[in-house]
């Protein structure tokens, strides 16, 4: 009789799960953007929570602590964006004046011819119409401008999302502990203590990971800026140094792929600034290896920064916060990247970390189920 009841219960639960899953699939398109906003708000509040808690312990007011942290953060972002925009504008202005005055098209053409000749020495490639390259680049610039116009449309949507994430983050920060308490009250008595333990462990893991990542990103940014200044001292003629450093730091948040993505802006700026300069074109790394436009110097500098970060800074600052095997990191990155693109790659490792903690606790729970 009791076995029959168990089967009935199982079928009942199965039907409920299928209905719930079906319902979720139907409503998902309508709620997915809100869920994404909430996930980001949760991640931001997890990063800022220790800061708010610490400030609250000093000034004894939660609301004021949230206000101070949020205003400081928004001011920092605005200052960064404003100086980034003006820096980019200056760079673009300088670049366009370079095109007009220095015979940029001729230089580019000459470079293309030289490149073609150099390549032909080593590789057998079909004839390229080098004179056509400039017109192709012109077309490309036209495409880019068109893309920028369509980008302006999406910026509106982005600003809306950013404001919503900010509001969610403020609300979460102000009432984080109360929210958590009202969520855990739904855990049944039997699993209550275990549930609290799980929530606390996951929370700590995510928080440690995110703060560690932020520290590592800052250290990469600072080291990259110093490295770029050193390169400039040797005549690399790089501009927007601070922003390139910050972008390299941010790119570093994505494991494996990020460090290489971080090099690209530096290489781009080096090529843009040095086109037409014979000295930069014939530059040699350590006076032996040809490194046109300081490209190899930049790559070497970023590799050194990566090595210092991986072997010295991250182990000291972050430690084994998540402790996931590199192979698992790679698989997680591939899955995250395939599912939701770069965002998925950014979230892949913390998500794997959460799964690891949840899995560990569930294993502990199943081993000790007779104790509950």
């Amino acid at each position: 009789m009791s076995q029959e009841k168990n089967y009935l219960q199982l079928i009942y639960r199965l039907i409920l799960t299928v209905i719930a899953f079906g319902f979720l699939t139907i409503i998902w398109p309508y709620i997915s953007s809100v869920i994404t906003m909430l996930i980001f708000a949760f991640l931001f509040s997890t990063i800022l929570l220790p800061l708010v808690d610490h400030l609250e312990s000093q000034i004894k007011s939660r609301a004021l602590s949230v206000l101070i942290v949020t205003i400081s953060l928004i001011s920092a972002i605005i200052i960064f964006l404003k100086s980034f925009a003006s820096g980019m504008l200056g760079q673009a202005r300088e670049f366009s004046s370079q095109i007009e005055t220095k015979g940029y098209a001729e230089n580019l053409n000459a470079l293309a011819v030289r490149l073609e000749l150099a390549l032909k020495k080593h590789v057998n490639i079909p004839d390229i119409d080098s004179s056509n390259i400039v017109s192709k680049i012109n077309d490309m610039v036209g495409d880019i401008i068109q893309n920028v116009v369509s980008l302006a449309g999406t910026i509106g949507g982005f600003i809306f999302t950013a404001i919503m994430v900010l509001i969610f983050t403020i609300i979460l920060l102000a009432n984080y502990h109360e929210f958590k308490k009202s969520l855990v009250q739904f855990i049944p008595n039997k699993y209550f203590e275990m549930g609290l333990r799980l929530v606390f462990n996951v929370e700590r893991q995510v928080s440690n990971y995110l703060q560690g990542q932020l520290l590592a990103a800052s250290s990469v940014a600072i080291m990259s800026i110093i490295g770029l200044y050193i390169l400039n001292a040797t005549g690399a003629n790089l501009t927007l140094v601070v922003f390139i450093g910050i972008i390299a730091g941010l790119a570093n948040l994505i494991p494996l792929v990020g460090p290489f993505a971080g090099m690209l802006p530096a290489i781009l700026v080096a090529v843009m600034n040095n086109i037409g300069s014979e000295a930069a074109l014939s530059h040699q790394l350590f006076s032996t290896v040809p490194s046109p436009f300081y490209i190899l110097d930049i790559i070497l500098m970023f590799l050194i920064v990566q090595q210092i970060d991986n072997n010295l800074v991250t182990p000291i600052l972050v430690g084994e916060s998540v402790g996931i095997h590199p192979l698992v990191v790679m698989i997680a990155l591939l899955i995250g990247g395939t599912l939701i693109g770069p965002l998925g790659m950014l979230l892949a490792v913390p998500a794997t970390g959460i799964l690891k903690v949840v899995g560990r606790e569930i294993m502990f729970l199943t081993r000790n189920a007779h104790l509950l």
Partner: protein
Amino acid sequence: MKNAYWANLFKNWDKTESETVTIIKKLPIFADLNNKELNEVSKLLHDRTYKPEEYVFKRHAPGEGMFIIQSGAVHIIVGEASGNSQVLAELSNGDFFGEMALLEDEVRSAAAIATDHSRLLGFFRSDLQILIERKPALGNKILQNLSKVVCTRLRKTNELLMQAQSDK
């Protein structure tokens, strides 16, 4: 509608003591806490209800915190569930148990079972840790009180031990 609006607007003006504060202010762990601090602690407590014969926790289960009996009754049991178990204590309104788990991440040394419909307030280690980070002065007071409770227990155990030895 209007009443609800005003009640909500001035909800913080209502200074009447909550049921939870009335219960916890009598506990030695929350002794010397002012009303504001007691209110702060009461926000951290988890209100749980148990049916008769429902385990609050079993022996050897991982312990996460202490429970305060708001209403009902709880038995603390040592020994095996197979029969040779022994009721160590019968607890009722205002009593508390499991406070050792606030200090150490160890398994429960005894089981707790509700013998009546019971409402318990749970105060857990993770909440105490967050409280220590957010409000160090308040966290410190609670830790000091907790140490006093443990010391008193230890002194009583020593006295019982000495008495048992002298009886031999």
